[in-house]
């Protein structure tokens, strides 16, 4: 295939799509730091081309039969080849389309949102970095290459979360995000190395072909699958490494929209889908994934119920939706997972961007305050956010409904009904918390009503001045995304054809009982209804049922104490425990013994020198004594 014109076109398109953002990143950081408009132009220009290339590729290969792989050897080091290249299949095509589209929209949106920020150029530089890394990640042909960009994505996340570096919480959150995902990545890296050592090839196509791993023992397969899944847990903020994501909301809202809901966190799910055939070879591992997805989904939903910070609600919901995807994939519903990934990218970005408009306008994250300020008066965002929330809750005919249904379908295919029950509970909770936010926003309470005590301190965002201008730039992406959320669900079948054709294994097989179409919808409606009762109707106290149970609400608000636990571990076990022990050891034992030897030498120097000051006769005595002893030695 090499040398054919199609090949050249594909390669050029892919190189352009990935490398242009990188070029713009370098240019911005090196050359145009002082000229924000130029920087933004560069960045948006490059992402536009990326988008164009992605769409072109998508169009070109819509009926792609077999994956196309382009690869060259990056590095060969004695019995070790590290290839570098692009893999093109349907999943990729979809992913780069999503990524570049949302990147494009968010960057356009940011023109308004970030206008006037002193770090404007830097912002666009990092955005470009992210685009580069994410696009390359999606196109990676080998697991190692994927890891490479996986880490770079993490880096851009770190830089963007801590974008307002003068704010302590932001830098703290960035560090936390980096270290926590890094912990997951360590497992990923180990798994990757293990795989490499045992199979000698990390190319994704190779791993996904069942024949390649036929000789490997199942337990090893499970182990490496679990380790690689560690990376997914970290990046997609699943239990137990979930707590960095809510904190990551310290970053600018577009960043949250782009990285921490639509694309970067979805990279975990993408990896899962990418290696789906590989993972599905180990049923034990799949069950574990399913369990982790479920736990994350439920935990995050409960946290979302009590949060007053609008961005955090969406952050928790992101975790829980990612949990849904993991559940779907874990249950074997390849299509369901990928479909939900796609729809979620759209409506979650929408939700964040809408919230961003509010936050930008009113400079607060608190739903109650937003409501009091009358956020509902901004029409486009309000309509969009309602649409987004409805999609999130899985209300027909929005996209979320279709993907949720698909997920329920794959869960129902499991033998154990527990998974389905959990999934349905999740649907209910999702609808409840999303409409809780909507109703609070839409129906401001009477001034005098007792407000629930603030539970989260410091949620008001600061750091940049409000800007009335740029609203227009911010509005267009909202409209586009809303449109997508509304329409996309209807393309379910064609989407299924597209994706299903690309994946080796189908997953959710046939029989879907008819009540399955009803049950999620009913539960979602029930959730909305409960929210209405508690928050929407006239005279509602706007106090949720959880708020009435202090123990539970505290538990949820404290994120099930997971964070607290990590803090304690880091502070007491690592910092004050092992690390202190080691430094003490360094100072007292190692240095101490070295210094002790040196001091001992000097001390003995004193002793010896003192002996030298003795009377002359002692010296003669020494001569005599030494000679006598030496002679005595002769006899031994």
């Amino acid at each position, binding site marked *: 295939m090499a040398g054919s014109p199609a090949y050249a076109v594909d390669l050029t398109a892919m190189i352009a799509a990935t490398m242009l953002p990188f070029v713009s990143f370098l240019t911005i950081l090196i050359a145009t730091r002082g000229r924000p408009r130029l920087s933004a132009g560069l960045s948006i220009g490059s992402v536009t081309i990326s988008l164009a290339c992605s769409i072109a590729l998508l169009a070109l290969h819509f009926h792609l039969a077999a994956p196309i792989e382009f690869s060259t050897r990056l590095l060969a080091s004695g019995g*070790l080849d590290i290839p570098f290249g692009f893999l093109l299949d349907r999943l990729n095509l979809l992913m780069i389309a999503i990524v570049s589209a949302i990147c494009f929209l968010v960057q356009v949106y940011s023109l308004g949102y970030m206008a006037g920020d002193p770090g404007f150029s830097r912002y666009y530089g990092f955005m470009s970095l992210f685009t580069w890394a994410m696009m390359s990640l999606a196109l990676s042909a080998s697991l190692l290459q994927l890891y490479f960009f996986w880490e770079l994505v993490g880096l851009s996340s770190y830089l963007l979360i801590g974008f307002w570096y*003068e704010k302590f919480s932001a830098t703290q959150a960035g560090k936390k995000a980096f270290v926590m995902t*890094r912990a997951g990545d360590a497992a990923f890296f180990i798994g990757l190395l293990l795989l490499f050592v045992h199979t000698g090839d990390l190319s994704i196509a190779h791993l996904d072909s069942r024949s390649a791993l036929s000789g490997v023992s199942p337990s090893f397969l499970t182990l490496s699958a679990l380790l690689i899944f560690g990376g997914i847990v970290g990046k997609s903020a699943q239990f137990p490494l979930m707590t960095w994501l809510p904190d990551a909301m310290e970053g600018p809202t577009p960043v949250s929209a782009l990285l921490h809901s639509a694309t970067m966190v979805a990279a975990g799910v993408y990896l899962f889908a990418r290696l789906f055939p590989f993972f599905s070879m180990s049923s034990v591992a799949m069950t574990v994934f399913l369990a982790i997805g479920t736990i994350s989904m439920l935990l995050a939903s409960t946290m979302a119920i009590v949060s007053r910070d609008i961005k955090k609600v969406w952050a928790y919901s992101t975790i829980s939706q990612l949990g849904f995807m993991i559940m779907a994939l874990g249950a074997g519903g390849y299509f369901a997972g990928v479909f939900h990934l796609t729809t979620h990218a759209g409506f979650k970005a929408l939700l964040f961007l809408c919230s961003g408009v509010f936050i930008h306008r009113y400079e607060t994250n608190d739903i109650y305050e937003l409501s009091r300020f009358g956020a509902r008066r901004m029409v486009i965002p309000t309509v969009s956010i309602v649409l987004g929330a409805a999609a999130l809750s899985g209300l027909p005919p929005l996209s979320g409904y279709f993907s949720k249904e698909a997920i329920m379908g794959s869960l129902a295919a499991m033998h154990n009904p527990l998974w389905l029950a959990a999934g349905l509970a999740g649907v209910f909770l999702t609808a409840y918390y999303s409409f809780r936010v909507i109703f609070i926003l839409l129906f401001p309470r009477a001034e005098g009503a007792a407000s629930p005590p603030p539970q989260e301190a410091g949620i008001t965002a600061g750091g940049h001045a409000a800007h009335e201008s740029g609203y227009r730039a911010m509005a267009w992406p909202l409209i586009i995304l809303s449109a997508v959320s509304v329409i996309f669900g209807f393309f379910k079948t064609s989407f299924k054809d597209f994706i299903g054709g690309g994946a080796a294994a189908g997953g959710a097989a046939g029989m879907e009982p008819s009540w399955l179409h009803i049950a999620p919808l009913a539960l979602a409606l029930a959730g909305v209804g409960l929210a209405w009762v508690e928050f929407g109707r006239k005279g509602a106290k706007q106090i949720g049922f959880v708020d009435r149970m202090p123990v539970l609400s505290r538990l949820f608000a404290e994120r099930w104490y997971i964070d607290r636990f990590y803090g304690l571990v880091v502070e007491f076990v690592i910092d004050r425990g092992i690390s202190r022990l080691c430094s003490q050891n360094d100072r007292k034992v*190692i240095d101490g013994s070295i210094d002790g030897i040196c001091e001992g030498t000097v001390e003995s120097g004193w002793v010896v020198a003192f002996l030298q000051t003795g009377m002359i006769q002692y010296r003669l005595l020494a001569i005599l004594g030494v000679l006598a002893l030496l002679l005595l030695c002769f006899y031994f």
Partner: protein
Amino acid sequence: MHMEPATFPFLSAILLSCVVGMLTIMVIPEERHVLIKQVSIFFSGVCLLLTLYVFFAFNRSLGGLQFVEQVSWIPTLGISYFNAVDGFSLPNLLLTGIVFFTGVLTMWELNTRVKEYFALYFLLVTGVFGLFMSMDLFFIFVWYDVSLFPMYLLIAIWGTTRKEYGAMKLTLYLLAGSALILPAIIFLWAKSGLNTFSFVSLMHPGMFSPADQKFAFLLLFLGFGILAAVWPMHTWSPDGHVAAPHGVSMVHAGVLMKIGSFGVLRVAIMLCPLGWIYWAKSMAVLAVIGIIYGALVGLRQTDLKYVIGYSSVSHMGVVGLGLSTVTVAGLNGAVFQMFAHGIMTALLFSSVGYIYDRTHTKLIPELGGLSRIMPVASAFFILAALAGVGLPGLANFWGELLVFLAAFKVYPLFGVIGVVTLVITALFMLRVVQKTFYGPANARFAGLPDVSPWLGTPRIILAAVLLILGLYPSLLFNVIRTASVPFMNGLPR
């Protein structure tokens, strides 16, 4: 081994330009600071250009020894002045050239006892260059010591924190290392019965009996290991780093520690491969302890340079782990990591140097918010710190990747520990970055100037090298492979 004689003595020219530079500086009157610095930059630039030439002129397909120069020196003892480069020494040579040049630039603002500083600095680097290019055991030792003894004065006169203690500790530690190396070298000479110190003649797997190899390897490993900051012989290094002036810290952490690992590779491993195989496991244990221990201790440091110092211990542990795997990948990774770590720490120290010269403190609690005041200087530091974390796209990633890969084959558990330590490294590096550069701008430092393009030159060079190698590691691996593959193939199994 293939030997390619030099058409022109480039290697000697490198040494000569150092020596001539030193002598030129010595005859310039003390007061003419600027002239001294200009001369230093000139001669170090010449060195850099020569090393670059040698690096790129090295025939990667031929491999073996190239640029060979050999002159008999003391025939009665079989000592010859024998210079050559191979795939192992070439990266180190280039590293020295880069760090040397940038180190001179970094000290542009020095104004006390300038003449002595640069003269000693040149002497120091002469030793380092000599060591990397020498193929004669005697000269390896001579250069080793030549690079040691200016250190004491450089640290003790121009240093900062606890400088006399640090200088004395460093000097004595390193000399203690040479106390083990010299007997071992002579031991090998005596045992070979060839009456030659030439590395090439001695390097045959069957040259020494296994027992001799084990013994000599132990001595050599401990001796050079001190310089490579192998745990638990590492404590000189943080103290030395902290005390040294920035330019010296750069050479010190960037290059001198590499002398240690390079010595282990060149002398201990290549001459005593059986000893290597015998002791490899113990080496690996020490290296892994070093990796995790350095990171853990680094977690609690409050002095910027101490943090870097302990991270160096950790990173040099990675080198040690690579060397102890007895695999091609391990060797490649170790040599690459030497280079990457050298550039990275040089960049770190160079940035810290800039910050210290402005703020007059390197205590983390006293700093903070520097990103606002000097964004470019901070960016360099952050870049280097990220390299230290092992971020892909920067040079260190490849070294660590290969080392851990090799380790997974041989010592899976150690590999796991090493990878997990990356998390801790990330934790403390980012903690330092956060506390030093982030947060509200410190009013004390308001108005301090950011790096000017001229003063930023050394950092730009170093950062560029980190990036280039991060994206195109084959540049170096192609060279290293020419030495590691034949060596491992020739190894008795």
